[in-house]
Each structure stands twice: as structure tokens, then as C-alpha cells.
């Protein structure tokens, strides 16, 4: 047994999982509050990475790149919610899926037309270069920092969701959307804010992850699929579901890669199938919600 490799893979799983948590969290919050599953979420993640790339090339500051990615997606999210999604709240789920899917195509192809299909790189920031000695393992500093950044972001999200009025409305909406509407809460503004925040999380994750992966127009589609799996495993609309599901997904991918690389992605879907058979509503899902 190669312990160093095992530790390294455990950490890789953790970093991958943390990013999946961030992306899935945006998806699940938007769904929980608005009842819309955003098939363009992967494209949002990709646009975030490109926004960060552009900002970095202009300023050579990674922090500004991250901020640019997040703010750009906040704006994109708000514009799309106002311009398109809000007309879809009363339409069937299938239509919502279709329109967000179409939106994803437009964003991906737009970026491809603008930047070309070749892969771009966003360098690791200065404060993240090299490796850190953890005692049992030398591990890339930036990846350790990513864990910290994601953890901090999740704490902020948790506080917003569980300690603010907005969060109360969002969580109430996850339980019973109709009731929230009946109570006369200004859902229009809440929806806008939630969609903006969910999109921002995707954009943020896109920039944070950009130095680890390559930046290409198609980078979002795998992340979208994986975050769907996370949501199915964890249970839709659940904060803890997204968190635990994301970490499980990350570990499954990277630990399988150590044993049998060919099956690393396939195992993730196998895990999803097992959850579906044993607990169709997901680990943290509530039975009866569809």
C-alpha cells in the first residue's frame, strides 16, 4: 500500500469535491427557491473562468480575476433572470430545462466564437505556488488554499441561508413554494437575488478552478453532469446534501482513479445508480418532493 499516493488521492478528491460542492450548491439553491433546474449552470461556470482569464490578463491580479468572475456572473445571472427565466416560472419544468439548455449552447458557442476553441491557462497565483509540507505529504499549496477558500465561501453561504431573512425565504421555498407565494413575500425580488447568487457561485467556482484545469469552452459540461450526480446523491434542495454529495463524488472519482483509472468516472455514475435504487430521494432528500 502506497500511503503517500493514498493521501494525495484523498486530497485530490477533497479539492475536486469542494469545487463540485460549490457548483452544486448554486444549482440546488436556485432549484430549491425557484423550482428551476438550470441546465446552463455549467456554462455559467465556464463563463466565470473566462471572465477571470480576461481580468487576469488585464490586471495580472488573481484576486481581481476571482472578483471579476464572480461579479460578471452575478450580472449575467441577473440579466438572464430578468430577461428570460422569469417568463418561465409558470411554465412546465420541461420548458425551463429546454430554455436553460439553449442558453447554455448560446453561451458556450459565443465564448468559442470570441476566444476560439483552444485551451487557455490561468496561472496559479503567487501566493499559491509550490507545494506545502503537511508532514505526511507534499501537496500543491494552491489546492490546499482552494479547500480553505471553498470552506470559507460555504460558511458565508450557510450564514446567508440559515441566519438571514432571505435564507429563511429560500428554505421555506424549498419546503413549500406555493405557501411562500401565498404569504405575500416579494418573491420576484427574492428570485432575482437567489438566481444572481447561484450564478455567482458558479462563476466564482469557475475562476477558482481555472488554474487547476484548462480553460476551454466545453469545460462546463462535465462539471454540470457531475454536479447533477452530486445533487441526485445528496438530495435536491439540501445544503448538507450538496456538501456531503460533492465530497463523496470527489472521493469516488479520485480514489477509483488510483485503483483503476479507466473506471474513475464510471464509478461515480454507478454510485448514483446505487443511491437511486436504495434511496431514490437522495441521502438528505425529503421523500415526497416529486
Amino acid at each position, binding site marked *: 500500500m502506497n500511503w503517500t499516493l493514498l493521501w494525495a488521492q484523498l486530497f485530490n478528491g477533497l479539492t475536486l469535491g469542494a469545487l463540485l460542492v460549490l457548483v452544486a450548491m448554486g444549482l440546488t439553491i436556485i432549484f430549491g427557491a425557484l423550482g428551476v433546474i438550470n441546465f446552463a449552470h455549467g456554462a455559467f461556470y465556464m463563463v466565470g473562468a473566462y471572465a477571470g482569464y480576461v481580468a487576469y490578463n488585464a490586471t495580472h491580479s488573481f484576486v481581481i480575476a476571482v472578483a471579476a468572475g464572480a461579479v460578471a456572473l452575478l450580472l449575467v445571472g441577473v440579466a438572464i433572470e430578468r430577461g428570460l427565466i422569469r417568463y418561465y416560472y409558470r411554465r412546465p419544468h420541461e420548458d425551463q430545462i429546454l430554455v436553460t439548455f439553449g*442558453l447554455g*449552447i448560446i453561451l458556450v458557442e459565443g465564448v468559442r466564437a470570441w476566444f476560439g476553441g483552444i485551451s487557455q491557462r490561468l496561472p496559479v497565483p503567487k501566493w499559491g505556488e509550490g507545494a506545502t509540507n503537511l508532514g505526511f505529504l507534499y501537496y500543491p499549496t494552491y489546492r490546499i488554499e482552494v479547500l480553505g477558500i471553498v470552506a470559507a465561501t460555504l460558511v458565508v453561504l450557510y450564514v446567508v441561508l440559515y441566519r438571514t431573512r432571505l435564507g429563511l425565504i429560500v428554505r421555506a421555498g424549498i419546503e413549500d413554494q406555493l405557501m411562500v407565494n401565498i404569504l405575500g413575500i416579494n418573491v420576484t425580488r427574492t428570485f432575482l437575488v437567489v438566481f444572481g447568487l447561484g450564478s455567482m457561485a458558479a462563476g466564482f467556482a469557475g475562476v477558482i478552478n481555472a488554474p487547476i484545469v484548462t480553460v476551454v469552452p466545453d469545460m462546463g459540461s462535465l462539471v454540470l453532469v457531475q454536479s447533477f450526480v452530486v445533487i*441526485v446523491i445528496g438530495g435536491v434542495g439540501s445544503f448538507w446534501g450538496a456538501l456531503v454529495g460533492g465530497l463523496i463524488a470527489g472521493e469516488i472519482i479520485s480514489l477509483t482513479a488510483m485503483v483503476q483509472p479507466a473506471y474513475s468516472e464510471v464509478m461515480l455514475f454507478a454510485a448514483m445508480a446505487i443511491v437511486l435504487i436504495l434511496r431514490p430521494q437522495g441521502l438528505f432528500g425529503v421523500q415526497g418532493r*416529486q
Partner: protein
Amino acid sequence: MIVAKLSTRGPFGRWLPEAVAVVALLLFPSAFALIGGTADMADRILIWGIFGFGFDILFGFTGLLSFGQAAFFGSGGFMTAYLLIAGYTQNAGIALILGTLFASLLGAIIGALSLRRSGIYFAMLTLAFGEMFYFLDISPLKQFTGGENGLSGVPATHIGIGNWFVELHTPEGMYWVIAILFLLGFWLARRIVNSSFGAVLLSIRENGERARTLGHDIQKYKLAAFVIAAAYAGVGGSLFGLFQGYMPPDAFYLDTSGQLVVQTIMGGAGTLIGPTVGALIWIYLRTALQQLPIVGPVWKMVLGIIFVLIVTLFRRGICGGIALLWERMVGKQAAQPPAAQVVAATPVESAPRKRAPLDGKVILEAKDITKRYGGLTAVDRVSFEVVEGEIRALIGPNGAGKTTFFNMLAGTIPPTSGEMFFRGERITNASSTAICQRGLVKSFQINQLFPGLTVWDNVRIAAIARVYGKFHPSMLRDAADSEEINTLIAQSLAAVHLSERAHAPARELAYGEKRRLEIGLALATRPSALLLDEPTAGMSPSERQDTIRLLKSIAAGVTIVIVEHDMDVVFGLADRITVLFNGRKIADGTPDAIKANAEVRAAYLGNPVQQ
């Protein structure tokens, strides 16, 4: 091609869509060449069209939006290509059949898993499972699929006997093979859609829960639709590999599933021919746009924009829009039941009803049934017996537990404890489908209809459940051909006085008519007992009187249990009345006895029992 949607059921019109398709397929290559299309493009369009028939049955007719169809397109294609390359068979036809069977088998497995959830989850799950197949293809199964290189060198095969054969590797020759399969696929898809099986699929799209409570096993129907879609995908994928001589891993891409969805929406879902029209647009525009200077690099974005616009503003797609125009111009004459039948059907006898003997055979029995929600006991050890042929009313003040009790009888919520029997058989915890199939049928308080279907077709869904049972995969026989079903529909409509409205879509009915249709749906399952939840809720006084008369005439052959707030209705109808209060049964007896019962008065008026 428009005619495909407007399936005329008359003897002459029945083959019209196929005839039009034959002519269109014969003319297509030359007509397409006039606008610069090539045989290669024509072949691709038809392959996507075949792929699309199955998807349209799944999405357009059953309402299941799958983003994983690439899995079956790819699997079928790779299996066929592999069989030929590895030399297991030289016959492309056999390889294609095996490839299709393989895709169908995978469809059954993935379908069974994905259909454990519905709505958005189904879309997410199919997308995820679709990606799984991509990863399986490029990595673990590399030795069979060629990984990222795909399988090249699918041998040139020919189909035919002796000197009569077609080379499969020229797009021109291949066109006719594909066209014949396209025609077969179209014919089969139309059979499926027009069969009773297809009618149930439509009802699932319109209101799956209602189809379930009418006695259809909708899970089986959905799975069957999924397997059909996978089989069509398998044929499409196999042809794709055969015609290119090469099976690329792109077949498994999410883009393949996505392109199918986009084409189907653009062309028009629920029209069968829509996906082909969508494929024509996609493939032709791609070629045309790519030649333009500025638009060239962004052709896919342009298609994406068109797609979003169509979804937002023009959801029926091109064929759906044309069909709508056609309907408006020609008038709605499609799918009309033979008029003679409506007249010929004998309305249920309206002779004055004799009260059933109250000591007759017990048909429905509840023993000590209880429902607890946490600390709250909604229904507390209620027992009651309903005798065959009687009208039993269930009354009680608000919150008495009537609806909970009622739903337990219908099998929509399970009791916490206690037993229920119907015609001597135990029905505790049986599914609502099974209970309905035994002849105990519930009619809903809030109208649960199939809004997009006509009145006639609404009742047809119930009649199919009655005549064919909970699952009947007969896909080739036209649903309108069954005399038994047609008679049952006509009788049920006559019983609820809706014969005149047979061709109106359910959503266009007036409120009172919808209530009557709701009862008509239940009647068409030929129930031996009918559970009616507030049948007169929201009606005007005169509508109420009509309904009382209607129910009396129906009750000649059926036992009725009715929950009702309106005391005039209750005392005008019921043979016996059961009173619930605070979850308990406080009285049980004839209307006169109930009127005289002090405890009942106390429950309603709230004054203590002392007069």
C-alpha cells in the same frame, strides 16, 4: 407531411400520411439537391429522423424529457459496427437488428433506473447516465470501441439477392435503404401513437397521476416508451455507423442528445415528423451558415438563439404550428368518433330508483382504520360497512377526517392501522392502481382531467383501463377500432349527458361539465363502487339538482360512497349516512335516524347534548 399529425381515422385517410411520406421520400433527393443539399446530408437527416421518431414518442407523446438518448444511439451503432468489423456476421441487416436489440436492452436497464424519479430528476438522471456511456466507451471498453478513435473500417456490405443489391457505402445507394427503414419506422411509430397504448402514453403526458388512479400501471407504460425510444436510437446509430463506414465516439457526446432535443423542439414535438424537419433545418443551416463570412464561425450559436426563441414563443415548433393553422382552416374534423355510436348507445336507465335492500351483501368494509400524522390522529378506529347497491353519504364538520378516511379507502394514503376489504378481498395498502382495477374507483374533488384531450379521448383512457387492464402493450391496433371501448365510452358519456360535447377539448368545458366528465371518467372504468368526493362542490343550485338526478340514475348499477357538505344533496340521495366527528364515527344510519340523532346535532351545532 403535415397530415401526419392530423391522423384521420376514416377508411380512406388512414394510409394518407404513409402515402405522403412515400412521395416525399421519392422526391426528396432531387428536391433537396435544388437547394444545394447532398445525398450525404439527406442520409443524415433521415437517420436523425428515425432517431427522432423514438424520441418523440418518449418526449412529445409521453412527456418524458430525456437528455441521454446518445447512450442508445452510440451503443446500437457501436454494437453493429463491432459485429461487422470483428466478423461475427457479414450481414449488415443482422448486425443492425442485434445492435438495435442491444440498445433496447440497455434502454430497459437505464429506463428502469431513471424512471425511479420523474420531472426534472428524470432529465438530470438521463443526462448523467448518458455521460456514463461516454466514459464507458472511451475507457473501460476501449478494446471493443476503439476509445477516442472510434471504430473505423466498417466493411462495405451490400443488401440484396443475387445481382440485385445496393452498395451501402455510397450515400446515394444508402439513401434508399435508410428511406425504407425510415418509412417502416414512421409507419410503426404512427401505429404506436394511434393505438390504445399510445392513448395511455398521451394521458401520462397530460396527467400521469390521474392515469394511475384510473387503473393504469404508468410505470410500465413509461418504461415501454423508454425502450421504444432506445430501440429507435439503436436503429439510427447502427445506420449512422454503416453509412459512414466509421463509428465515432462523438455519438456518445452530450451534444448528440442535445442536438436531438433541439431538432425535436424546432420541428415540433408530438408530431412524429417534427424531429425530421428539425434535422433538415439543423443540417441544412449548418452547411449553409458555415459558408457565410461572418455567421460561419457562430452557426451553432445562431441555432441556439433560434432554439431559445422557439421554446419561448413558439413551443409547438414548426410542424405543430402548421398543424394548428391547418386545424383552424379545415376545422376540427380529426379523430371524431363515429357519430352513429353516440346515438346508438343506450343511456343508463333513468327509471325511478328503488332503494337497495340495506341488509344486502357487504361490498366495502373498513375495520378499525386509523390514520395518525405524528401526534395528530386524523381518523381514529373507524369501522363501516357498505352494502352492495346503496348510496352511502359520509358527512361531518370540517376537520372531521372525512377526506383522510376517503383517501384511505381509495388507496391514495395508507392507513396507520386497521384493515379494509372490498368484495371480500383485502385491499389494505394496495396501490391505487390495483384498487381501481378491482372496481373501487375514486372521483376527485378538484377536477383531475386530461386537459389537452377531447372529452371522448378523456373517457377513452378510463375505458382502456377497464377493457385492457393495467398494462396492455398492444401497439399495432388502432385504438378507435375496438367496438367494446367505443361502446363503453359512448355509454359513459351518455350517462353523464356529455355526448354532445364529445369532440371538445376537456379544457374548454364549463365547470359543471368538467365535474360531470370527472364522474364519467370514473364510470367508464365500470366500477362496482364509486367514491365521490364532493361532486357538487362549487355548483349553482340548478346544477346541483341536475347532479343529484344524474347520481341517482347512475346508482342503479353502482354502489356509491359520497363525501358531501351540502345537506340537501346528502338527504336527497343517501340511503344511509355515516357521520364522522373529530376522527371518530359518531353515527351510522338512515337519513331519518341521523336527523334525529342528538350527538350529530351537537357535533354540527356545537351545543351540549341536552334538549
